[in-house]
């Protein structure tokens, strides 16, 4: 990523601006002198920083005494003037920082004499500083190392280039610039971080020559990291630094917190910067491009032994608290539960504990808010989860202990954070109780959406039977089947009839057919055959229907047989006469006249009908 970037040494610019009209405005002068250590080895170097701040534009030079116990190895001075409107009036404030590198002359107790400054007729003096000079090769104790105290309105306060807080290594420990008078240096404070652990990436410009401004600072892409700017100075602020015995100015260009998201070896690409050297814009000597060295990290995976509920985003030094407000409430009134995790780490990946359902408390959806800040080079964060709870019954309801498993990279171990349980006293709702009934009532009103069901059952969908195409045909099948069976049964009975019975049933029709044949013979004029056929019709009928063989019987026997079968005497007498007439006509043709023959047919049919009815 390449950003437009321009820093100016405002002190140089301020010199070019001649607003001396306000210089006469008298102001207080602050003069301080600090040493970077109270102990120094006889062959070591001590840095003395003298800061003079005064409320006007211009430059002053503190008076450096001839030190009795120290030699001055190098000397540097930076000036800065700020300009602002206060209550509508322009105001200047200038700061002059003089840095001296001192080497002791002898071992034992030594003193840095007071620094003096004359300003607008007044004299200002610092306190003497006592230094313990150790023998050659001795190492000053860490407690003796001290940093200049922060000063009010000190523009360099907090910009200690060696502060790679917390406890980071000196970024220039392995820098050997040789003959280079300008170099870009990138550093990290931890090259073996754990996943999710903060690493501070710093970018410094080291210069022996004067630096006017910075152009086109290109920072590397930081894929695989979540990043957060810690410092992004808008002004170039030099800090003296002696590298291999050569005084340099170190300018912090960028300080950024990076959090690796994946384990493995990662290389951060070099940064690039264009530097304008010289004094201010009017006396610039030229532009130089510098590139930093690449940086390698070996990101460590989180160690074994993760708790069951551990989330990979919970890396850092966190604290967990829970609170509820109010702790005494009426039924139905809301309670706000706040779960707060705060500490050092990447708050955006933090997985907060969830409140399990609590009997008697209706919980609504939680809201989450985050706050981030940078403190002493570390990214600090606070995640707050707020959840609305509504008690549904009276009595005491307890919000149980909430737990959150984290990995603390400083201690290199997993920890479980726990909140304290919270007791909430729930009183009856206003108007829910009466004077005569002091016991709290638990009013259970019907309604509300019911809880979901967890048992999964499915239903089989299908067309109902009555909509199936076979349903109604199947209904019609039984009656039709029965009808068919009845029909078939009748037909079978017809097929299996007795010939005698059949002859009886067909006797009348056979007799009728013979009478019709007799009529045909009558038409031909064959009277004998006519009478013979009539007699056969009657005797045949008697034989078929009545089972009486008339041909072999006398008239009396015939009459008797018929009477035995239930026929009347008159009928038998008529039958005998007809048969007798037929016999006479067959054997005495003259007696058969045409009208008599036709009458014979009528008589025969009548007898057949009467026999049929009987």
């Amino acid at each position, binding site marked *: 990523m390449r950003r437009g970037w321009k820093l100016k040494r405002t002190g140089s610019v301020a010199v070019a601006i001649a607003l001396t009209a306000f210089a006469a405005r008298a102001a207080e002068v602050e003069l301080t002198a600090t040493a970077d250590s109270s102990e120094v080895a006889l062959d070591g170097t001590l840095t003395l920083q003298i800061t003079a701040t005064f409320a006007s534009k211009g430059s002053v030079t503190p008076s450096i005494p001839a030190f009795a116990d120290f030699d001055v190895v190098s000397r540097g001075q930076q000036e800065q003037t700020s300009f602002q409107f206060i209550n509508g009036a322009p105001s200047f404030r200038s700061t002059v920082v003089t840095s001296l590198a001192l080497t002791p002359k002898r071992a034992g107790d030594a003193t840095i004499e007071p620094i003096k400054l004359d300003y607008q007729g007044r004299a200002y003096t610092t306190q003497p500083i006592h230094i313990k000079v150790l023998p050659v090769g001795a190492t000053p104790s860490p407690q003796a190392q001290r940093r200049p105290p922060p000063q009010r309105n000190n523009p360099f306060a907090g910009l200690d280039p060696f502060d790679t807080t917390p406890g980071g290594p000196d970024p220039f420990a392995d820098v050997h610039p040789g003959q280079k008078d300008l170099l870009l240096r990138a550093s990290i404070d931890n090259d073996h971080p754990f996943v999710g652990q903060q690493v501070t990436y710093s970018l410094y410009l080291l210069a022996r020559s004067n630096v006017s401004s910075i152009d086109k600072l290109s920072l590397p892409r930081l894929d695989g990291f979540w990043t957060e700017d810690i410092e992004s100075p808008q002004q170039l602020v030099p800090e003296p630094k002696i590298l291999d015995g050569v005084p340099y100015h170190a300018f912090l260009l960028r300080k950024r917190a990076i959090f690796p998201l994946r384990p493995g070896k990662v290389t951060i690409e070099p940064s690039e910067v264009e530097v304008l050297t010289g004094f201010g814009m009017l006396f610039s000597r030229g532009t130089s491009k510098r590139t930093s060295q690449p940086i390698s990290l070996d990101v460590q995976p989180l160690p074994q032994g993760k708790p069951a509920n551990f989330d990979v985003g919970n890396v850092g030094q966190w604290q967990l608290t829970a609170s509820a407000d109010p702790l005494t409430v009426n039924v139905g009134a809301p309670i706000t539960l706040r779960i707060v995790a705060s500490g050092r780490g990447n708050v955006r990946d933090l997985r907060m504990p969830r409140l399990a359902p609590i009997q008697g408390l209706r919980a609504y959806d939680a809201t989450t808010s985050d706050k981030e800040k940078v403190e002493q080079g570390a990214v600090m964060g606070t995640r707050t989860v707020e959840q609305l709870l509504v008690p549904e019954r009276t009595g005491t309801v307890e919000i149980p202990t909430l737990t959150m498993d984290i990995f603390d990279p400083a201690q290199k171990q997993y920890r479980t954070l726990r909140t304290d349980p919270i007791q909430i006293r729930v009183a009856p709702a206003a108007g829910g109780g009466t004077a005569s009934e002091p016991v709290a009532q638990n009013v259970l009103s019907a309604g509300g*959406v019911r809880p979901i069901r967890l048992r999964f059952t499915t239903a*089989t*969908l299908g067309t109902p039977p009555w909509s199936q195409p076979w349903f109604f045909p199947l209904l019609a099948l039984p009656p039709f089947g029965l009808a068919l069976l009845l029909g078939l049964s009748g037909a079978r009975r017809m097929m299996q009839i007795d010939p005698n019975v059949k002859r009886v049933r067909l006797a009348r029709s056979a007799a009728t057919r013979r009478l019709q044949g007799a009529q045909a013979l009558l038409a031909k004029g064959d009277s004998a055959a006519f009478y013979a056929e009539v007699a056969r019709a009657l005797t045949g009928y008697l034989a078929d229907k009545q089972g009486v063989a008339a041909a072999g019987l006398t008239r009396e026997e015939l009459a008797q047989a018929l009477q035995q079968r239930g026929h009347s005497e008159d009928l038998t007498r008529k039958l005998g006469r007809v048969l007798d007439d037929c016999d006479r006509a067959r054997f005495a043709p003259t007696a058969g006249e045409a009208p008599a023959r036709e009458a014979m047919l009528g008589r025969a049919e009548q007898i057949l009908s009467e026999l049929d009815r009987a």
Partner: protein
Amino acid sequence: MTMLALLLVANAGAFGLLPSPGAEAPGSSQAQLFADANAAYLSGDISRATSAYEALIAEGVASPTLETNLGAAYLRQGKRGEAALHFERALFLDPSDDDARADLTELRRGNVDKLEGEAEEGGSETLARVLAPLPGGPASVVFLIAWCAGWAFLGLRVFQPQRRGPGTWAAAAFSVAGLCALITWGAAHGRKLALQRAVVVAQSAPAREGPQEKSATHFEVHEGTTVRVEDEEGPFRRVKLANGLTGWVSSVAVELVVPPGWAGRPVMAGPSRASQP
């Protein structure tokens, strides 16, 4: 006759003759997805729960439990129309689903539409509710068996009049068949009413005089209101409210309780609701 009865009973499930919530065991992946959806619902992630429930429905799962839970999820999201639709579907699948009925009653309390006037349908809503639990499928099967048995006994009575018993058995079988026919008829009528039921899923929809955009608007219906679809013409449906109020409403705004493809309902051509804007 015995063979016919066995065949019918054996195939009852396959033909969907028997109403059977819980008759079919869900697949393990579906059960897992259902469990995930429930977990999301309980943790307050309602949108994720809704998506998971809908995914199960998209797989063709028909479950009264699923429909009830989805309805509850939609109700918590404030989508009253969708919630009412899925509660109705749960009741179609299992008329004895007390949770779905209670949730639907709760939902209707907050409906925008309040119907006034006498129920012109003669209480068709009540009638549908009464008829819905009737075991139409089993009753129709028993009806068929008893009907066939009755005719069989009658045949015995005709062909073997000297035997005692077939006549009595025939009378008993026809009595059972008559009772079952009555139940089947009731269930069929209830099903016909259910197939016409629909729910307004749009927040509001104008009910017009005719199936055209330019037709005058008579009144407006709002989400969650149950209607009866009487006709369909192009992108409009003719709906009737319980009090007889009738109008043409956009098909997109009204969703059938029994969707195409369910319970023998023919799948209609045209875009489904999911693909509609």
